[in-house]
Protein backbone atom coordinates (compact mmCIF):
# COMPACT_ATOMS: atom_id res chain seq x y z
CA UNK A 1 0.00 0.00 0.00
CA UNK A 2 1.11 3.55 -0.72
CA UNK A 3 0.31 6.40 1.69
CA UNK A 4 0.86 10.13 1.16
CA UNK A 5 2.22 12.16 4.04
CA UNK A 6 -0.60 13.45 6.28
CA UNK A 7 -3.12 11.20 4.55
CA UNK A 8 -4.76 8.04 5.73
CA UNK A 9 -5.35 4.99 3.62
CA UNK A 10 -7.01 1.60 3.93
CA UNK A 11 -6.72 0.21 0.41
CA UNK A 12 -4.08 -2.37 -0.37
CA UNK A 13 -3.22 -3.60 -3.85
CA UNK A 14 -3.14 -7.37 -4.03
CA UNK A 15 -0.11 -9.06 -5.49
CA UNK A 16 -0.26 -10.46 -9.03
CA UNK A 17 -3.82 -9.35 -9.72
CA UNK A 18 -4.66 -5.70 -10.14
CA UNK A 19 -7.23 -5.61 -7.39
CA UNK A 20 -7.57 -3.63 -4.23
CA UNK A 21 -8.86 -4.71 -0.87
CA UNK A 22 -9.92 -2.53 2.03
CA UNK A 23 -8.57 -3.04 5.52
CA UNK A 24 -10.99 -2.67 8.46
CA UNK A 25 -8.94 0.30 9.69
CA UNK A 26 -6.94 3.20 8.23
CA UNK A 27 -3.22 3.82 8.38
CA UNK A 28 -2.10 7.43 8.50
CA UNK A 29 1.39 8.50 7.55
CA UNK A 30 2.52 11.38 9.78
CA UNK A 31 5.95 11.64 8.23
CA UNK A 32 8.35 9.71 6.04
CA UNK A 33 12.04 10.43 6.30
CA UNK A 34 15.43 9.01 5.48
CA UNK A 35 18.05 9.22 8.19
CA UNK A 36 21.73 9.37 7.38
CA UNK A 37 24.92 8.50 9.19
CA UNK A 38 26.49 11.88 8.39
CA UNK A 39 24.02 14.58 9.34
CA UNK A 40 23.40 17.75 7.35
CA UNK A 41 23.68 21.10 9.10
CA UNK A 42 22.41 24.62 8.86
CA UNK A 43 25.20 26.93 9.88
CA UNK A 44 24.72 30.61 10.65
CA UNK A 45 27.57 33.02 11.06
CA UNK A 46 26.78 35.21 14.03
CA UNK A 47 29.91 37.33 14.18
CA UNK A 48 33.55 37.48 13.28
CA UNK A 49 34.68 33.84 13.06
CA UNK A 50 31.71 32.83 15.19
CA UNK A 51 28.99 30.53 14.01
CA UNK A 52 26.22 28.34 15.31
CA UNK A 53 24.92 25.19 13.67
CA UNK A 54 21.99 22.82 14.08
CA UNK A 55 20.98 19.59 12.33
CA UNK A 56 18.92 20.36 9.23
CA UNK A 57 15.38 19.40 10.24
CA UNK A 58 12.07 21.13 9.81
CA UNK A 59 11.34 23.00 13.05
CA UNK A 60 15.00 23.36 14.03
CA UNK A 61 15.69 26.78 15.54
CA UNK A 62 18.85 28.74 16.33
CA UNK A 63 18.97 31.54 18.86
CA UNK A 64 21.30 34.12 17.33
CA UNK A 65 21.50 36.39 20.34
CA UNK A 66 19.82 39.64 21.35
CA UNK A 67 20.88 41.63 18.31
CA UNK A 68 20.02 39.19 15.56
CA UNK A 69 16.98 37.27 16.80
CA UNK A 70 16.26 33.69 15.75
CA UNK A 71 16.53 31.56 12.62
CA UNK A 72 14.10 28.71 12.07
CA UNK A 73 14.01 26.02 9.38
CA UNK A 74 10.46 25.93 8.04
CA UNK A 75 10.80 23.78 4.94
CA UNK A 76 13.24 21.44 3.27
CA UNK A 77 13.62 20.79 -0.45
CA UNK A 78 15.35 17.95 -2.23
CA UNK A 79 14.93 19.54 -5.65
CA UNK A 80 14.23 23.23 -5.20
CA UNK A 81 12.57 25.18 -8.03
CA UNK A 82 11.07 28.65 -8.21
CA UNK A 83 8.13 30.03 -10.14
CA UNK A 84 6.58 33.48 -10.37
CA UNK A 85 2.86 33.69 -9.86
CA UNK A 86 1.04 37.04 -9.77
CA UNK A 87 4.32 38.82 -9.19
CA UNK A 88 5.28 36.68 -6.19
CA UNK A 89 8.13 34.21 -6.16
CA UNK A 90 6.99 30.80 -5.06
CA UNK A 91 9.33 27.97 -4.15
CA UNK A 92 8.26 24.42 -4.83
CA UNK A 93 9.56 20.88 -4.77
CA UNK A 94 10.13 19.63 -8.28
CA UNK A 95 9.15 15.95 -8.48
CA UNK A 96 11.21 15.45 -11.66
CA UNK A 97 14.66 13.88 -11.38
CA UNK A 98 17.31 16.30 -10.22
CA UNK A 99 18.90 17.50 -7.07
CA UNK A 100 18.95 20.96 -5.61
CA UNK A 101 18.81 20.58 -1.83
CA UNK A 102 17.66 23.75 -0.11
CA UNK A 103 16.30 24.99 3.19
CA UNK A 104 13.70 27.67 3.74
CA UNK A 105 14.80 29.62 6.78
CA UNK A 106 12.64 32.12 8.61
CA UNK A 107 14.60 34.82 10.40
CA UNK A 108 12.81 36.71 13.14
CA UNK A 109 14.62 39.86 14.17
CA UNK A 110 14.31 41.21 17.73
CA UNK A 111 11.98 43.99 16.55
CA UNK A 112 9.57 41.40 15.20
CA UNK A 113 10.45 41.76 11.52
CA UNK A 114 10.27 38.41 9.75
CA UNK A 115 12.23 37.58 6.60
CA UNK A 116 12.38 34.35 4.68
CA UNK A 117 15.53 33.13 3.05
CA UNK A 118 16.48 30.12 1.00
CA UNK A 119 19.80 28.43 1.55
CA UNK A 120 21.27 26.09 -1.03
CA UNK A 121 23.75 23.34 -0.39
CA UNK A 122 25.03 23.33 -3.98
CA UNK A 123 25.42 27.13 -4.16
CA UNK A 124 26.97 28.28 -0.88
CA UNK A 125 26.82 32.02 -0.36
CA UNK A 126 24.13 32.48 -3.00
CA UNK A 127 21.33 34.58 -1.61
CA UNK A 128 18.41 36.45 -3.12
CA UNK A 129 18.02 38.90 -0.25
CA UNK A 130 20.59 41.09 1.38
CA UNK A 131 21.11 40.29 5.02
CA UNK A 132 23.86 40.66 7.54
CA UNK A 133 23.72 36.93 8.18
CA UNK A 134 25.80 34.36 6.37
CA UNK A 135 23.80 31.13 6.13
CA UNK A 136 25.25 27.84 5.01
CA UNK A 137 23.56 24.50 4.32
CA UNK A 138 26.32 21.91 4.55
CA UNK A 139 25.67 18.34 3.61
CA UNK A 140 27.97 15.71 2.09
CA UNK A 141 27.30 14.82 -1.54
CA UNK A 142 27.17 11.11 -0.73
CA UNK A 143 25.86 9.96 2.62
CA UNK A 144 25.29 6.43 3.84
CA UNK A 145 21.64 5.82 4.70
CA UNK A 146 21.06 4.68 8.27
CA UNK A 147 17.26 4.32 8.30
CA UNK A 148 14.04 4.63 6.35
CA UNK A 149 11.42 5.74 8.84
CA UNK A 150 7.63 5.95 8.37
CA UNK A 151 5.74 7.43 11.31
CA UNK A 152 2.43 5.59 11.26
CA UNK A 153 -0.85 5.86 13.13
CA UNK A 154 -3.58 3.24 13.06
CA UNK A 155 -7.01 4.84 12.95
CA UNK A 156 -10.12 2.85 13.76
CA UNK A 157 -13.54 4.55 14.08
CA UNK A 158 -11.89 7.99 13.90
CA UNK A 159 -9.70 7.23 16.89
CA UNK A 160 -5.97 6.64 16.99
CA UNK A 161 -5.58 3.13 18.38
CA UNK A 162 -1.89 2.49 17.74
CA UNK A 163 1.22 4.39 16.79
CA UNK A 164 4.60 3.22 15.60
CA UNK A 165 7.60 4.54 13.69
CA UNK A 166 8.41 1.63 11.42
CA UNK A 167 11.78 0.91 9.86
CA UNK A 168 13.29 -1.96 7.95
CA UNK A 169 13.57 -4.76 10.55
CA UNK A 170 10.93 -3.08 12.75
CA UNK A 171 7.48 -3.71 11.24
CA UNK A 172 4.11 -2.74 12.68
CA UNK A 173 1.74 -5.50 13.76
CA UNK A 174 -1.92 -4.64 14.14
CA UNK A 175 -5.19 -6.52 13.78
CA UNK A 176 -3.64 -9.62 12.24
CA UNK A 177 -1.69 -7.63 9.66
CA UNK A 178 2.03 -6.91 9.47
CA UNK A 179 3.17 -3.67 7.84
CA UNK A 180 6.72 -3.64 6.47
CA UNK A 181 8.70 -0.69 5.19
CA UNK A 182 9.05 -1.66 1.55
CA UNK A 183 9.72 1.33 -0.68
CA UNK A 184 9.29 5.10 -0.86
CA UNK A 185 9.01 8.16 -3.02
CA UNK A 186 12.64 8.56 -4.03
CA UNK A 187 12.12 12.00 -5.59
CA UNK A 188 10.25 14.18 -3.14
CA UNK A 189 9.80 11.82 -0.20
CA UNK A 190 6.10 12.59 -0.10
CA UNK A 191 4.84 9.03 0.21
CA UNK A 192 5.86 5.66 1.57
CA UNK A 193 5.13 2.19 0.29
CA UNK A 194 4.35 -0.53 2.80
CA UNK A 195 4.09 -4.23 2.29
CA UNK A 196 1.04 -5.61 4.06
CA UNK A 197 1.07 -9.28 5.02
CA UNK A 198 -1.60 -11.28 6.78
CA UNK A 199 -0.38 -14.70 7.82
CA UNK A 200 -2.41 -16.65 10.27
CA UNK A 201 -0.34 -19.78 9.69
CA UNK A 202 2.87 -18.12 10.77
CA UNK A 203 3.05 -19.97 14.08
CA UNK A 204 2.84 -23.29 12.28
CA UNK A 205 5.90 -22.27 10.26
CA UNK A 206 7.73 -21.17 13.42
CA UNK A 207 6.80 -24.42 15.16
CA UNK A 208 8.39 -26.20 12.18
CA UNK A 209 11.55 -24.11 12.63
CA UNK A 210 11.78 -25.08 16.28
CA UNK A 211 11.17 -28.74 15.56
CA UNK A 212 13.82 -28.79 12.84
CA UNK A 213 16.40 -27.07 15.05
CA UNK A 214 15.73 -29.16 18.12
CA UNK A 215 15.62 -32.36 16.08
CA UNK A 216 18.93 -31.70 14.35
CA UNK A 217 20.67 -30.64 17.59
CA UNK A 218 19.36 -33.71 19.41
CA UNK A 219 20.31 -36.12 16.63
CA UNK A 220 23.80 -34.78 16.01
CA UNK A 221 24.96 -33.28 19.29
CA UNK A 222 22.98 -34.18 22.39
CA UNK A 223 22.37 -37.83 21.55
CA UNK A 224 26.11 -38.45 21.29
CA UNK A 225 26.91 -36.49 24.46
CA UNK A 226 24.21 -38.32 26.44
CA UNK A 227 25.34 -41.76 25.23
CA UNK A 228 28.95 -40.88 26.11
CA UNK A 229 27.93 -40.10 29.68
CA UNK A 230 25.98 -43.36 29.89
CA UNK A 231 29.02 -45.33 28.73
CA UNK A 232 31.18 -43.61 31.36
CA UNK A 233 28.75 -44.52 34.13
CA UNK A 234 28.58 -48.21 33.26
Amino acid at each position, binding site marked *: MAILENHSENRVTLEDIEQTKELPFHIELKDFRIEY*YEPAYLEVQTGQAQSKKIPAEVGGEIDLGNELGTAKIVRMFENFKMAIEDGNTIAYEDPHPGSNPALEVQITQPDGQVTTQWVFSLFPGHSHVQTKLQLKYSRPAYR*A*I*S*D*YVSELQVIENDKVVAEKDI*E*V*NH*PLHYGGY*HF*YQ*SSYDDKAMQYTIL*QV*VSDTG*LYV*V*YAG*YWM*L*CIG*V*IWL*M*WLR*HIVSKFKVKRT
Partner: protein
Amino acid sequence: MEIKYTIQGLLVYMTIAAYLLAFVITILRQHKLGHIIYLLGFAIAVCSFGYRWYHVRHVPLQNLFEVFLCLGMIYPVSLFCRKALRVGGYAADMLIGAIVLFPAGFVFNAEPQQLPPALQSWLFTPHVAVYMFSYIFMAKATFQAICQLAGKNPKPGENLLGPEEATYRIVCVGFPLLTLGLILGSYWGKQAWGDYWGWDPKELWSLASWLVFLGYFHFRYMFGKKHPRINSLWAIAGMAAIIITLLWVNLSRIFSGLHSYAT
Protein backbone atom coordinates in the same frame (compact mmCIF):
# COMPACT_ATOMS: atom_id res chain seq x y z
CA MET B 1 45.03 -7.76 -6.36
CA GLU B 2 46.33 -5.01 -4.15
CA ILE B 3 48.55 -4.76 -1.11
CA LYS B 4 47.08 -3.01 1.91
CA TYR B 5 49.53 -0.57 3.48
CA THR B 6 47.53 -0.17 6.67
CA ILE B 7 47.79 -1.48 10.22
CA GLN B 8 44.87 -3.77 9.35
CA GLY B 9 46.70 -5.07 6.29
CA LEU B 10 49.91 -5.57 8.24
CA LEU B 11 48.11 -7.61 10.89
CA VAL B 12 46.56 -9.81 8.19
CA TYR B 13 49.93 -10.39 6.52
CA MET B 14 51.58 -11.22 9.83
CA THR B 15 48.88 -13.80 10.54
CA ILE B 16 49.31 -15.38 7.10
CA ALA B 17 53.08 -15.49 7.57
CA ALA B 18 52.75 -17.11 11.01
CA TYR B 19 50.29 -19.72 9.71
CA LEU B 20 52.51 -20.59 6.73
CA LEU B 21 55.60 -20.79 8.91
CA ALA B 22 53.75 -23.00 11.40
CA PHE B 23 52.61 -25.19 8.48
CA VAL B 24 56.13 -25.64 7.10
CA ILE B 25 57.58 -26.38 10.53
CA THR B 26 54.85 -28.93 11.30
CA ILE B 27 55.46 -30.64 7.95
CA LEU B 28 59.14 -30.86 8.95
CA ARG B 29 57.95 -32.78 12.03
CA GLN B 30 58.73 -30.06 14.59
CA HIS B 31 55.22 -30.39 16.04
CA LYS B 32 55.75 -28.47 19.28
CA LEU B 33 57.35 -25.43 17.66
CA GLY B 34 54.74 -25.51 14.90
CA HIS B 35 51.99 -25.47 17.48
CA ILE B 36 53.49 -22.46 19.27
CA ILE B 37 53.76 -20.46 16.05
CA TYR B 38 50.19 -21.47 15.13
CA LEU B 39 49.04 -20.14 18.49
CA LEU B 40 50.98 -16.92 17.87
CA GLY B 41 49.30 -16.56 14.49
CA PHE B 42 45.92 -17.01 16.18
CA ALA B 43 46.77 -14.25 18.69
CA ILE B 44 47.58 -11.87 15.83
CA ALA B 45 44.36 -12.89 14.03
CA VAL B 46 42.34 -12.03 17.15
CA CYS B 47 44.10 -8.65 17.41
CA SER B 48 43.37 -8.02 13.74
CA PHE B 49 39.65 -8.82 14.18
CA GLY B 50 39.47 -6.76 17.38
CA TYR B 51 41.19 -3.84 15.66
CA ARG B 52 38.65 -4.02 12.83
CA TRP B 53 35.78 -4.11 15.33
CA TYR B 54 37.12 -1.01 17.08
CA HIS B 55 37.69 0.69 13.75
CA VAL B 56 34.23 0.20 12.19
CA ARG B 57 32.27 0.31 15.47
CA HIS B 58 29.90 -2.54 14.66
CA VAL B 59 30.35 -6.30 14.68
CA PRO B 60 32.69 -6.74 11.72
CA LEU B 61 30.83 -9.41 9.77
CA GLN B 62 29.32 -7.18 7.11
CA ASN B 63 31.29 -7.76 3.94
CA LEU B 64 33.56 -10.44 2.52
CA PHE B 65 36.70 -8.80 3.93
CA GLU B 66 35.37 -8.90 7.48
CA VAL B 67 33.91 -12.38 7.11
CA PHE B 68 37.23 -13.79 5.93
CA LEU B 69 39.02 -11.99 8.73
CA CYS B 70 36.74 -13.85 11.11
CA LEU B 71 37.31 -17.18 9.36
CA GLY B 72 41.05 -16.69 9.88
CA MET B 73 40.66 -17.27 13.63
CA ILE B 74 40.57 -21.03 13.13
CA TYR B 75 42.67 -22.23 16.08
CA PRO B 76 39.85 -22.93 18.62
CA VAL B 77 38.17 -25.14 16.02
CA SER B 78 41.33 -27.26 15.57
CA LEU B 79 41.70 -27.50 19.34
CA PHE B 80 38.06 -28.53 19.78
CA CYS B 81 38.29 -31.17 17.05
CA ARG B 82 41.48 -32.59 18.53
CA LYS B 83 40.31 -32.73 22.15
CA ALA B 84 36.58 -33.43 21.87
CA LEU B 85 36.30 -35.35 18.61
CA ARG B 86 39.68 -37.06 18.31
CA VAL B 87 40.19 -35.57 14.86
CA GLY B 88 43.61 -34.25 13.89
CA GLY B 89 44.67 -32.19 10.90
CA TYR B 90 46.48 -29.30 12.58
CA ALA B 91 48.80 -28.79 9.62
CA ALA B 92 45.82 -28.64 7.26
CA ASP B 93 44.11 -26.11 9.56
CA MET B 94 47.14 -23.82 9.39
CA LEU B 95 46.94 -23.97 5.63
CA ILE B 96 43.15 -23.37 5.67
CA GLY B 97 43.75 -20.32 7.88
CA ALA B 98 46.33 -18.92 5.49
CA ILE B 99 44.18 -19.63 2.41
CA VAL B 100 41.16 -17.98 4.01
CA LEU B 101 43.12 -14.85 4.96
CA PHE B 102 44.74 -14.53 1.54
CA PRO B 103 41.69 -12.93 -0.15
CA ALA B 104 41.20 -10.67 2.89
CA GLY B 105 44.79 -9.49 2.55
CA PHE B 106 45.06 -9.14 -1.21
CA VAL B 107 41.67 -9.15 -2.92
CA PHE B 108 38.75 -7.78 -0.93
CA ASN B 109 38.13 -4.11 -0.33
CA ALA B 110 38.75 -3.17 3.30
CA GLU B 111 37.05 0.23 3.13
CA PRO B 112 34.89 0.49 6.28
CA GLN B 113 31.18 0.68 5.49
CA GLN B 114 28.23 1.79 7.58
CA LEU B 115 25.49 -0.75 8.22
CA PRO B 116 22.62 -0.27 5.77
CA PRO B 117 19.09 -0.36 7.27
CA ALA B 118 18.49 -4.00 6.34
CA LEU B 119 21.46 -5.23 8.39
CA GLN B 120 20.55 -3.34 11.57
CA SER B 121 19.05 -6.22 13.47
CA TRP B 122 20.01 -8.37 16.42
CA LEU B 123 19.90 -11.32 14.01
CA PHE B 124 22.84 -10.02 11.99
CA THR B 125 25.56 -11.36 14.28
CA PRO B 126 24.13 -14.82 15.12
CA HIS B 127 23.06 -15.45 11.51
CA VAL B 128 26.51 -14.79 10.09
CA ALA B 129 28.56 -16.13 13.01
CA VAL B 130 26.77 -19.49 12.97
CA TYR B 131 27.46 -19.79 9.25
CA MET B 132 31.15 -18.95 9.72
CA PHE B 133 31.54 -21.66 12.32
CA SER B 134 29.82 -24.26 10.20
CA TYR B 135 31.90 -23.34 7.13
CA ILE B 136 35.14 -23.82 9.05
CA PHE B 137 33.96 -27.21 10.30
CA MET B 138 32.91 -28.24 6.81
CA ALA B 139 36.31 -27.19 5.44
CA LYS B 140 37.96 -29.44 8.01
CA ALA B 141 35.59 -32.26 7.15
CA THR B 142 36.50 -31.88 3.49
CA PHE B 143 40.18 -32.23 4.34
CA GLN B 144 39.43 -35.50 6.17
CA ALA B 145 37.37 -36.67 3.21
CA ILE B 146 40.30 -35.99 0.88
CA CYS B 147 42.58 -37.90 3.27
CA GLN B 148 40.26 -40.86 3.02
CA LEU B 149 40.22 -40.76 -0.77
CA ALA B 150 44.04 -40.46 -0.77
CA GLY B 151 44.31 -43.39 1.61
CA LYS B 152 46.06 -41.45 4.38
CA ASN B 153 45.46 -42.76 7.87
CA PRO B 154 46.66 -41.29 11.17
CA LYS B 155 49.52 -43.07 12.90
CA PRO B 156 48.43 -45.74 15.41
CA GLY B 157 50.05 -43.95 18.38
CA GLU B 158 48.15 -40.67 17.92
CA ASN B 159 44.78 -41.85 19.27
CA LEU B 160 42.91 -40.30 16.33
CA LEU B 161 39.92 -41.52 14.34
CA GLY B 162 40.22 -42.83 10.82
CA PRO B 163 39.42 -40.23 8.14
CA GLU B 164 35.99 -41.58 7.18
CA GLU B 165 34.75 -41.59 10.77
CA ALA B 166 36.45 -38.20 11.32
CA THR B 167 34.61 -36.68 8.34
CA TYR B 168 31.31 -37.93 9.73
CA ARG B 169 31.96 -36.50 13.18
CA ILE B 170 32.91 -33.04 11.94
CA VAL B 171 29.96 -32.89 9.56
CA CYS B 172 27.80 -33.86 12.56
CA VAL B 173 29.11 -30.79 14.39
CA GLY B 174 28.78 -28.46 11.42
CA PHE B 175 25.38 -29.50 10.09
CA PRO B 176 23.21 -28.23 12.98
CA LEU B 177 25.03 -24.89 12.68
CA LEU B 178 24.23 -24.84 8.97
CA THR B 179 20.58 -25.53 9.82
CA LEU B 180 20.51 -22.77 12.44
CA GLY B 181 22.02 -20.31 9.97
CA LEU B 182 19.38 -21.12 7.38
CA ILE B 183 16.53 -20.80 9.85
CA LEU B 184 17.80 -17.62 11.49
CA GLY B 185 18.17 -16.13 8.01
CA SER B 186 14.63 -17.11 7.13
CA TYR B 187 13.27 -15.68 10.40
CA TRP B 188 15.22 -12.47 9.77
CA GLY B 189 13.78 -12.21 6.27
CA LYS B 190 10.33 -12.41 7.80
CA GLN B 191 11.19 -9.61 10.24
CA ALA B 192 12.74 -7.32 7.68
CA TRP B 193 10.74 -7.86 4.50
CA GLY B 194 7.77 -9.97 5.45
CA ASP B 195 8.95 -13.00 3.49
CA TYR B 196 10.69 -15.97 4.98
CA TRP B 197 11.91 -17.16 1.65
CA GLY B 198 12.65 -14.99 -1.37
CA TRP B 199 14.48 -17.35 -3.77
CA ASP B 200 17.43 -15.01 -3.65
CA PRO B 201 20.57 -16.65 -5.17
CA LYS B 202 22.38 -16.80 -1.83
CA GLU B 203 19.34 -18.35 -0.17
CA LEU B 204 19.07 -20.82 -2.98
CA TRP B 205 22.70 -21.92 -2.79
CA SER B 206 22.69 -22.14 0.99
CA LEU B 207 19.67 -24.42 0.71
CA ALA B 208 21.51 -26.42 -1.95
CA SER B 209 24.55 -26.93 0.30
CA TRP B 210 22.27 -27.87 3.21
CA LEU B 211 20.55 -30.47 0.99
CA VAL B 212 23.88 -31.92 -0.19
CA PHE B 213 24.94 -32.53 3.41
CA LEU B 214 21.50 -33.96 4.15
CA GLY B 215 22.14 -36.31 1.22
CA TYR B 216 25.50 -37.20 2.77
CA PHE B 217 23.82 -38.37 5.97
CA HIS B 218 21.17 -40.39 4.17
CA PHE B 219 23.65 -42.00 1.82
CA ARG B 220 26.05 -42.85 4.63
CA TYR B 221 23.23 -44.37 6.69
CA MET B 222 21.97 -46.53 3.83
CA PHE B 223 25.07 -47.44 1.77
CA GLY B 224 27.98 -46.03 3.79
CA LYS B 225 29.48 -49.39 4.76
CA LYS B 226 29.42 -50.70 1.20
CA HIS B 227 30.75 -47.56 -0.54
CA PRO B 228 32.78 -45.60 2.01
CA ARG B 229 34.60 -43.60 -0.66
CA ILE B 230 31.36 -42.21 -2.06
CA ASN B 231 30.57 -40.80 1.42
CA SER B 232 33.65 -38.62 1.10
CA LEU B 233 32.61 -37.47 -2.36
CA TRP B 234 29.31 -36.25 -0.87
CA ALA B 235 31.19 -34.21 1.74
CA ILE B 236 33.43 -32.66 -0.91
CA ALA B 237 30.39 -31.83 -3.05
CA GLY B 238 28.88 -30.10 -0.02
CA MET B 239 31.99 -27.96 0.39
CA ALA B 240 31.85 -27.05 -3.29
CA ALA B 241 28.27 -25.83 -2.79
CA ILE B 242 29.40 -23.81 0.23
CA ILE B 243 32.15 -22.13 -1.77
CA ILE B 244 29.60 -21.19 -4.41
CA THR B 245 27.30 -19.82 -1.69
CA LEU B 246 30.03 -17.84 0.00
CA LEU B 247 31.92 -16.46 -2.98
CA TRP B 248 30.48 -16.99 -6.37
CA VAL B 249 27.07 -15.58 -5.51
CA ASN B 250 28.62 -12.39 -4.18
CA LEU B 251 31.31 -11.88 -6.75
CA SER B 252 29.64 -12.95 -9.95
CA ARG B 253 27.50 -10.47 -11.81
CA ILE B 254 25.13 -13.21 -12.92
CA PHE B 255 23.47 -13.18 -9.53
CA SER B 256 22.13 -10.05 -7.99
CA GLY B 257 19.89 -10.09 -5.01
CA LEU B 258 19.38 -9.18 -1.40
CA HIS B 259 22.76 -10.57 -0.36
CA SER B 260 24.87 -8.73 -2.91
CA TYR B 261 26.16 -6.25 -0.35
CA ALA B 262 29.74 -7.30 -0.28
CA THR B 263 31.94 -6.67 -3.27
